[in-house]
């Protein structure tokens, strides 16, 4: 899509942008995971440390949601590829 060969400044900026995006995406996924596992697992506020039940729950929540994210990511990539293909055919 951005084939200005020789326009190396643009390419460099795009590269940089994508790296920053990846970091930002990771951070968003991470904060989401923390919030979700906190919300789903912590409801006892009679103490200020996580109890055993909560610890187990947070542990499972992290693993299970990572698997969920991964699965969604795979399907998303497939569907997105299909979409791009369809749009290319239509000359969009």
């Amino acid at each position, binding site marked *: 899509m*951005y084939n*200005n060969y020789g326009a190396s400044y*643009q390419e460099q900026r795009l590269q940089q942008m994508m790296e920053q995006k990846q970091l930002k995406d990771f951070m968003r996924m991470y904060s989401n995971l923390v919030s979700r596992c906190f919300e789903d697992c912590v409801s006892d506020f009679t103490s200020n440390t996580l109890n055993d039940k909560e610890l187990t729950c947070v*542990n499972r929540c992290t693993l299970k949601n990572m698997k969920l994210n991964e699965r*969604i990511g795979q399907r*998303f990539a497939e569907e*997105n590829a299909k979409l791009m293909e369809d749009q290319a055919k239509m000359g969009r």
Partner: protein
Amino acid sequence: GGGMGQAQMDPNAQLAAAEQEMEMVTDMFARLGDLCYKKCLIQRYSDEELTKAESVCTDRCVAKYFQVNRDVSEKLAKLSQANQ
């Protein structure tokens, strides 16, 4: 600098457009994650594995989300044509 590609479009505008497009895709992905979590993660954390039912639900959830996306987008395109 070159002169090929994307006809006359200003390189900075190209970058901005690429950024916008990436932003859109990530935003969709994040929303999809929340939606499929709500729709499909029934047995929360009896286990660390996705159950078979949850996995199948997730696959369909993504497929259906893309269909809704396409339907809404076609509808909006029609509406905007009708308004011209």
